Structures are given as C-alpha cells and as structure tokens.
C-alpha cells in the first residue's frame, strides 16, 4: 500500500469467545505512523482481547484489522507478526529462551535472518533498551525492570511497524518506571500502550483512547480526557490520590 | 528410586535403554498429535511442574516421608504421551544437570519411572473411569487408584529387571516383597496427593484435566423457539480419540499381567517378614540393620516398624496389590474380547 497508510486501522471489530462471551462490540480506531497512543480502560473492558487481534492470535468475528495497510488474515500472519510487536505484561512469559541473546534472536531468526545480520539486530535492539550488558545472561538472573526492558528488545529486534505494550508500568519500582519511560519516549516507532496507569499515559502519550464495554468510548488528547472527571468516573478510571490534570496547562 | 551406574549389568541396561528409546519415540509422535506446535512449551512447563512437585515431601507413616513420582498425576492431567515425555525429561535433566541417576542406568530409570508409572497409572485410570459414570467423584477415585497402583508397579518392574540382571546376590522374592511393600505404602501417599491434586484442578479448571475431557457442562443456546441445550464440544482434537490411548491401555494391561505373573510366582516361595530395601523415599535415613537369627535373610522392617505382625501385614497388603493388578489385567482382556466379539457380531 502507500506510505500514507496508518500504522494501525481497526474497523468495526467484534469478537465473541468460543464460550459465547462477547468481548468486543465494534471497535473503530486509527493510529497514524509515529504516534504514541494510550489505550485506557477498566478491567474487563476488552483491552487484552483487542490486543490479541492486532497480531492475529485471535481472528475477528466481524470487522477488519489492518497494519500499515496489510489486512490481518491467515495468509498474512507471518508478515503481520513481524509488523506488530507485542510486549506481554509478564516478562517471564515473553522471555522463554535460556539466554537474553537467544531470546532477542528468536523473532528475527524465525524470519530467516542468520549470522552477522542476526547478531547486528540483537545488539541493536538490546542497545536501544540499554541492556547490551546482559547479552549472555539467563533472563531469570535479571531484575523485573531489566526483564521488561529485554522483553521490549525482543520485540524491537523484529523491527516492527507498531509496538504494542500491555501494562508496561505494572510491578515496576519508580526508578525502573522512569527508565522505561525514557526508553519508550526515545523510540522512533509507533506505540500503542494498553494501561490503566493514567499518569504514565499522560507522560508518554499525546493521545488516548478509552475502551469500555467493548467499544471505543472516547478518543482525544490525553490531557483533555484525564481532565474530564465525569468521563473517567463513567468508565471506572481514576487518577491517583492528589493528582489533578488541568485541561489547559498555563 | 534413581538407579545409579553399576546396579544392573550391561545387557539389562542396554535392553532397558532400547525399550525407553522406543517408548519415547512413540510418545514424541503421540504428544505432537495431542498438542501440535504447543508441544515444546506445554510439555516443558509441565516437566518443570513435575520437577517442582517431586520436591513436595509428604509424611507417609511412622515418621517417614515420601515424595511424589508424578507419573500417574501427569498422565491424568496432560495425557499419557505427554506425561511420559515430561517425566523422561525430568529424569534426563536430573541425570545430566544434577548427577542424579547413572548415565548407563538412564534407560532403566526412564523405563521404570516415566514409562511404567505413566502407562500403569493411565491404564488403571481408564479402567476405573470406564466402569463408573464420568462424574467428578469417579475421576478423583480413579486418580487415587491409578497413582496407588503405579508406584508398586514400578517397584515390581524394578524387581523383574533385578531378576534379569541385578548385580547383587539377593533373593528376588525378598526384593519383590520389600520393594513392593514399601512402595505400596508410598503409593498410598502418591494416590492421596494425586487424587487431591486432580480434584483441586477439577474444581478450578476442569478443562485442563486431560482425563476428564467430556465432563464439561452442556451449553444453553438461546434461539427463536426458546432455550436449547447442547453438549459442549470436545476441546481436544477429536480425530485421534479412541485411537490414542488404546496402545497405552493394552501396554498397561500387559505390564500388569507380566508383573502379576512374575511376582506371584516368586511370592509363592516368599520368606517370612519383610525385607526393607533401602531406597530413596526417605525410609533409609538412620536405618540400622538388625541381623536376625533366621539365617541369611535378615529381617528389615519399615523404619519404626519392628513389629512382626505389622511387617507381615505390609507383605499382605503387597499381596492384595498384586491381586488387584492381576485381576485388573484379566478383567481388561476379557472385557476387550467381549466387546470385540460384539463388534464382529
């Protein structure tokens, strides 16, 4: 497709689990190239279900998902999974290989990359998250924050079109949280961040979407959404105690 | 029960190695059919689980403690093929990374602890669940029986191997009684923990229990004409149902029969008392040998069980276990024949 295709375009996406529970009821969203967008929503809003559709782990019951113009279909899965980098909430799920090096290499190696090019990708990805020193260490010897950064690197090594992070700030201590924020804001890729950590969304993302009840309930600048107390309350979202967001900073 | 190098002679070690290799290659194919491309991660995680669970010590009796072998548990939770692979991988890792179990004895160890416990456990489980209705209680009871019998069955296979190529000059009958008796006791603990574990998984995620497939509640469809109830679809790939466990069942029956045959032959000339075989179940700690007056077969009782009556009782329990094994095997063969006859008619 053309260069102007958005990184991600979801149209009328609806999905019901095999047991009949319907989780998505027609999701529409577009994310332009280079944007950093937060997907906010209470527990059970369908956030994880939506994320699973973005790289074809779940396939749409109705509607379409396009990544940089390429529709998610059985025959495009391979390319889609290269383009969409999913970072799971628990880095132990993501880092399944015995060493950091092999783990970061797993994705590109599945794309058929070998030898020096593979090594370059691994080093490059680890360098971008500041974890080059952990190259030959087993993941379980790293701290939680380090593991999450390596998890981001495993995905960056695929050179994705869009990075999708599931609760990136969960379980991080304040310093690790800061380090990860610095890394994420420095990345030159489209980011979709699924979270209910509202200050983190405000810090990193210009724009936010609220997913509630299986549809996009709000879409706008993060600052404006978070300043609207009624909107937040209606969707079971809350700012931390003592935290207020003025709609128009002076 | 990890057998070290030098315990069995070379022919038996090699023979068991060939047997284990054959069993593993069958199971590799079987597990692929069941789990598809999920085999490596799923079996790996279940193997790690088995490894961890083997560290759960449970008190058995008279101040001794045992730990789970896990073959029957794995078979009921993830199916016999995957279970054999998982336990075998645990044994390989223990041998190579922890020097636990001899390298030349790997074949013996895999045959006994991965193949026999799993096959016998699964065979017993299927026998029991075929009798009763597929309800939760029956599945838990079947799990108990399966694990209970799987442990002494492995001990008796150990005895059979010992008879074929053991390097120690001990009467096979006393090895059989000691191993069988002690492991029947351990089997009780194994059975209890296995049954309770299966029960607790059934309570939370019944869909994860391989042995309880088909237990799912019927679904309700809301249609124009009202609510219609339909049976839940089998989540497992249906194409290999019926074909899958059959060889395992036949194998389990054969093993049970063989054991019953070999061991009851020797048991008929059984000496008095029960020789305690020092083994790894925690029965061995500070065990003192007590040479008794009645000749070469000095008596060894289960730790803390110096009472002859109790020792005799344990031997009796071993006998009952054997009868169950033999009876189960015969029952299965007969049933099978009858069904085949019906199928022909």
């Amino acid at each position: 497709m053309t260069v102007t295709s958005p990184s991600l375009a979801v149209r009328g996406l609806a999905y019901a689990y095999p047991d009949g529970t319907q989780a998505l009821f027609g999701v529409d969203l577009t994310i332009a190239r280079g944007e950093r967008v937060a997907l906010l929503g209470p527990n059970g809003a369908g956030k994880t279900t939506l994320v699973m559709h973005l790289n074809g782990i779940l396939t749409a019951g109705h509607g379409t998902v396009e990544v940089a113009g390429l529709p998610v279909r059985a025959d495009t899965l391979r390319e889609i999974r290269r383009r969409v980098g999913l970072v799971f909430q628990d880095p132990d799920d993501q880092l399944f290989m015995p060493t950091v090096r092999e783990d970061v290499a797993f994705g590109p190696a599945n794309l058929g990359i070998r030898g020096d090019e593979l090594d370059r990708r691994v080093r490059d990805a680890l360098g971008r998250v500041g974890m080059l020193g952990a190259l030959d260490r087993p993941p379980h010897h790293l701290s939680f924050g380090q593991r999450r950064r390596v998890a981001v690197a495993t995905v960056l090594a695929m050179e994705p079109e869009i990075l999708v992070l599931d609760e990136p700030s969960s379980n991080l201590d304040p310093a690790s949280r800061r380090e990860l924020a610095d890394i994420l804001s420095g990345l030159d890729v489209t980011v979709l961040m699924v979270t209910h950590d509202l200050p983190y969304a405000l810090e990193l993302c210009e724009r936010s979407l609220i997913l509630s009840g299986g549809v996009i309930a709000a879409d706008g600048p993060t600052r404006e959404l978070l300043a609207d107390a009624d909107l937040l309350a209606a969707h079971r979202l809350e700012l931390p105690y003592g935290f207020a967001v003025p709609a128009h900073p002076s | 029960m990890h057998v070290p190098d030098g315990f069995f002679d070379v022919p038996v070690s090699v023979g068991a190695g060939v047997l284990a290799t054959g069993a593993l290659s069958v199971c590799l194919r079987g597990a692929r059919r069941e789990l598809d491309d999920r085999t490596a991660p799923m079996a790996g995680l279940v193997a790690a689980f088995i490894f961890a669970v083997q560290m759960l010590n449970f008190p058995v009796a008279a101040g001794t403690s045992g730990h789970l072998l896990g073959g029957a548990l794995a078979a009921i939770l993830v199916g016999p093929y995957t279970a054999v692979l998982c336990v075998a991988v645990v044994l390989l890792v223990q041998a190579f990374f922890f020097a636990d179990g001899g390298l030349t004895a790997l074949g013996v160890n895999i045959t006994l602890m991965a193949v026999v416990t799993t096959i016998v456990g699964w065979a017993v489980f299927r026998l029991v669940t075929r009798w009763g209705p597929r309800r939760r209680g029956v599945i838990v009871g079947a799990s108990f029986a399966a694990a209970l019998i799987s442990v002494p069955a492995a001990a008796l296979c150990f005895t059979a191997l010992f008879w074929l190529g053991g390097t120690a000059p001990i009467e096979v009958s006393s090895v059989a009684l000691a191993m069988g008796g002690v492991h029947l006791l351990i089997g009780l603990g194994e059975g209890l923990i296995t049954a309770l574990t299966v029960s607790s998984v059934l309570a939370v995620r019944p869909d994860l229990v391989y042995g309880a497939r088909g237990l799912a509640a019927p679904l309700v469809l809301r249609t124009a004409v009202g609510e219609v109830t339909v049976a839940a679809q089998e989540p497992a790939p249906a194409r290999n149902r019926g074909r899958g466990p059959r060889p395992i069942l036949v194998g389990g029956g054969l093993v049970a029969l063989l054991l019953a045959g070999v061991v009851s032959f020797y048991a008929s000339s059984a000496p008095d008392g029960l020789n305690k075989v020092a083994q790894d179940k925690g029965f061995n700690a500070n065990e003192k040998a007590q040479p008794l007056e009645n000749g070469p077969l000095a008596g060894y009782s289960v730790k803390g069980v110096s009472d002859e009556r109790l020792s005799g009782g344990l031997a009796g329990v071993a006998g009952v276990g054997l009868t169950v094994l033999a009876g189960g095997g015969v029952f299965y063969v007969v049933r099978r024949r009858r069904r085949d006859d019906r199928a022909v008619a």
Partner: protein
Amino acid sequence: MSAGHHHQLYRAGDSPVHRLPPQCKLLAVAAFAVAVVATPRDRLWAFAVYAVLLAAVAAAARVPAGFVLRRMVIEVPFVLFAVVIPLVGTGERVAVLGVPLSVPGLWAAWNILAKATLGVAASILLAATTEPRTLLLGAERLRLPRLLVQIATFMLRYMDVILDQMRRMRIARESRGFVARDLRQAPVLAKSAGALFIRAYERGERVHLAMLSRGYAGEMPIIRDLSASRRDWGLAVLLPVLAAATAVLSWSLA
C-alpha cells in the same frame, strides 16, 4: 529422592575442559560410564585407574576435589542400599566383627559402590564444566530428538520460576501456621500442587502465544550452532579411550 539437593552444578571457568564442545564431553562421559560398568568387579586396579583418570580431568578443569565430593551426597541412598546387601545377600558367609556377612554380597556392594561413585563423579565433572544450555545444544548436535531437547530447554528456563512460585506458596502456608505433620495435611499440599499445575499450564499457553507473536511456526530456529574440530574430538576421546583400554585389559588379564 534428594529433595533439597538440587543445586545447579555448573561452575563457571575457563579451562581446556570447559572449552570443549558439549557434544564431545557428553559422548566421552557416556562412553566412560559404559567402560566402568563393563569392568569385572574383582579387577580392583582397573577401578583405581578410572579414579586417577577422573582426578586428572578434574585437575585439568580446575574443579577442586571438595566441590566434587560435596556434591556426591546425591549417591547416599544407594550407598545405604549397598551397605545392606552383604547382610541380606545369599551364599558363603564370613564373620566381620561378629556379624555374618555374605561374601558375594560384599562383592556386590563393592561393585555398586565403586561403579556408582565413578559414574556420579564423571557426571558431576560434566555438569560442573558445561553450562546447562550448552549441554542441551550438545545433545541436539548428537541427534537427540529435537522436540525432547526443546522440552528440556523450556523446563530448564521455567524450573526456577516454578520453584519460586512453590516457595512463595510454602511461605504463605507456613505464615498462616501450617505444618505438614502427617498425611492429614495432604489436602493442603495437594491444593498447592493443583494451583501450581494450573499456573504452569496457563504460563505454557501464554508462552506459546508469545512465541506465535514472534513468528514461531512449529520449528525452533537454530540460533547457536556449535561445531567441534578434530582437535576437540582428539582431546575429548582421551578419557573414554583410556577407560576402554583399561576395561579391555581388565577382561583379558584374567
């Protein structure tokens, strides 16, 4: 067996033995164990030669004797068994300190002790000089079924994660006053085991999803390929060749 004895045996280092490709070491240790097991038990000198060979390997690998000895506790259950054999063994008897012992039983006990000890020491040396991950790569090089090696790889990766979960559950149990005294406490242990299984299984499913998201299509890519040079093999076969020569000698020198 050996609950609580499961330490990782690997001891990082940079010796000629550490540097050998894993497939060479695996084959060498396996062949050594076969030679030991095949040696007649009454050739005491042969066992001494094997012990010297292992000591030489340990010295070359710069693995201290204490390290190996401490880890040989894994053998204890069968040592106890070996001690019992002369007491229950059949055949000719000899009185030692007033206790009638079976002569063939004594030989059998020696046989098991000597061979098991040599086997365990060789395995410890292998595990001490080879990283677990490399050992698995070596096994794959030796044409062990790849699926089996992959299962072991995943097991190795998640062993500590699951043991950690188990430890946390134990702490949770004990901090609420639970003590496992006898079988009546089994239901509590079993609930933990059940919960552990569910967590392990669900993690397996999530790992599978994570693999799919990074392009997994049923085959694990070969990322590190270790090849062994002729020189590596030449060095590695030293141990089994010398052991095999000893075994052959022990057979012929009747």
